[in-house]
């Protein structure tokens, strides 16, 4: 499974991790050795201020590693950088400062700021550098013949049984179908799609028709696994939501964990085809008001 980066030169996640460690390291130094650090950058020793800045750095660093919203935490670093630059500019004017050292420190902070801004931009835009464009690929092996899997998928009306965010798919004719998809806040988004490729027992491709709120396309390939071990199923999906509010909301909806969503859907496909049912715990008893766990089950199952 991978998310392609067309325009991206730097791996933004790796960059974010680097910045995270940098934050934690610098923050700890400020907390533990504020006086030495002040001397190093050539400003008056103010341990309490330094320790507070250190705490901010550590918090940003830990936040970046928290995984949930690294973009926002990197943005918090940008805000912190601005604060530091302001303080350093003020320090430059004071005669308690060693000008040369403060200038070097300012240049260093400016450099880090540039990295922070770049990273924050890349993290909050889509992986293709274009806001919200999403590309996902995922593969699974199913203990059945390509023919059986192909015939399930060839009838798009079957897909809501395995794909959680699909409300319904209706075949309009042999090529075209109408898709209704859940979107945040209990609303739905709809579009018409047409089959673009079809190779019996091997390949199906589709894409949304002109005028769809969410421009999207997908394909599924069925390859006989070696050694008679069933079929390798490869799914590829692309979403290109438009700009604007709907686009942003949808991008967020599909974009939060598109890989996880496709992984879950393919597990369901495999479960349904191999065992005749999809395992569930919704509706089981528990010593709480809900049958499942909001934190774990609901999050994972989408």
């Amino acid at each position, binding site marked *: 499974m991978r998310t392609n980066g067309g325009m991206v030169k730097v791996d933004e996640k790796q960059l974010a991790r680097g910045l995270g460690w940098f934050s934690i390291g610098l923050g700890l130094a400020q907390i533990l050795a504020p006086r030495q650090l002040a001397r190093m950058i050539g400003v008056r020793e103010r341990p309490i201020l330094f320790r507070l800045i250190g705490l901010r750095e550590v918090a940003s660093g830990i936040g970046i590693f928290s995984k949930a919203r690294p973009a926002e935490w990197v943005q918090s670093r940008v805000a912190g950088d601005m604060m530091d630059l302001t303080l350093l500019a003020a320090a430059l004017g004071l005669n308690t400062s060693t000008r040369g050292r403060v200038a070097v420190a300012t240049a260093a902070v400016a450099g880090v700021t540039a990295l922070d801004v770049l990273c924050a931009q890349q993290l909050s835009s889509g992986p293709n550098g274009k806001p919200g464009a999403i590309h996902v690929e995922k593969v699974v*092996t199913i203990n059945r013949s390509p023919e059986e899997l192909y015939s399930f998928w060839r009838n798009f009306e079957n897909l809501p049984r395995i794909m959680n965010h699909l409300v319904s798919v209706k075949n309009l004719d042999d090529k075209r179908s109408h898709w209704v998809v859940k979107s945040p806040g209990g609303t739905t988004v709809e579009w018409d799609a047409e089959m673009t490729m079809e190779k019996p027992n091997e390949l199906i491709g589709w894409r949304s028709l002109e005028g769809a709120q969410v421009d999207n396309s997908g394909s599924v390939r069925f390859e006989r696994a070696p050694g008679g071990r069933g079929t390798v199923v490869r799914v590829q999906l692309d979403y290109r939501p438009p700009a604007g509010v709907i686009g942003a909301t949808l991008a967020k909806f599909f974009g939060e964990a598109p890989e996880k969503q496709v992984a879950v859907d393919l597990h369901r496909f495999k479960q349904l085809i*191999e065992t005749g049912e999809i395992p569930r715990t919704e509706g*089981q008893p528990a010593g709480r008001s809900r049958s499942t766990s909001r934190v*774990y*089950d609901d999050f994972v199952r989408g």
Partner: protein
Amino acid sequence: MKANCWYGKNDVRVEEVDDPKILNPRDAIVKITSSAICGSDLHLYNGFVPTMSKGDILGHEFMGEVVEVGSAVKNLKVGDRVVVPFPIACGNCFFCQKGLFSVCENSNPNAVLAEEMWGHSPAGIYGYSHLLGGYAGGQAQYARVPYADVNPIKIENGFTDEQVLFLSDIFPTGYMAAENCQIQGGDTVAVWGCGPVGQFAIKSAYLLGAERVIAIDRFPERLGMAREKGGAETLNYEDVNISEALEEMTGGRGPDSCIDAVGMEAHGHGAIYAYDRMKQAAMLESDRPIALREAIMSCRNGGTVSVPGVYGGFADKIPFGSVMNRSLTIKTGQTHVQRYLRPLLERIEKGEIDPSFVVTHRLPLEEAPRGYEIFKNKEDDCIKVVLKPWEE
């Protein structure tokens, strides 16, 4: 119905909850007549297993009577007496068809969570965290059994519950641990941990042809059971240096196979033990592999280290150089219980073993919290607790 639910570290409570319902065509509902507390439940009780949620119903060793079946279950009928294996297997996937039931590809609805943690997902397990499916467990008056057409074994003779209950987990678990040792005539097998799984590993090692079994623990009652019921020689690690003692007992070579029936919360002493306790408390490692390290270092060249003990995540300072340079084999896994049900029931029928020997405590389900407490603290010489859901 009444069910024993998890609410946090050292906090389980018997609560009134809804009765389970059939949710899928291959489900059955079992009215539970006996349900045991497993040593691995203590890892939940002690808060070492991640992804538990308040209100989860515990328990994965249970048996009872079928009271309802789904439309696709043809081999069971209402009134059948069954023992339910702890891993949930679909019977259809590549792994189930190879007999590797505990790594079934289909039974964990939270597979993507497990994939994050472990790379790939194993089977779902009753009452054993949301990482393993978030299924309601069997320390309750009723349980829903998924894929009931392939999992439970019918008990059609007059055995008591306690003679067959442990087919659900600990007897096959001890047996698979011994089988993994690939015992040959004349072999010496050392077993770390004389809890219920260790006791069954000792018995099974002899059933599979071991010449000698050496059992290691620190509780006199457990060592006593290993000697008297299992026929093992015993070592108390609080009295002797285990590596030296094993060396001496095996002519300087080491046991042919070593079984770690302890797992992630091993005890020990000295600096290394303090180091592991601290790292685990600080969440820098999830497991304290003290028994595993000792088992590896003690095992003879070319021998097998078999690990039925439960590990959750990451363990430090595993002497892998010793494994590699001395040609050791490590065999482990959650037990593929379904594979052993029939053959082990036959061994019970032939009188080769009566698994009820491990039971030391019988309590009504209502007293499950007390059961956990005495089992955890080894009070009153506790080795195995069986809960009776319908007794007051």
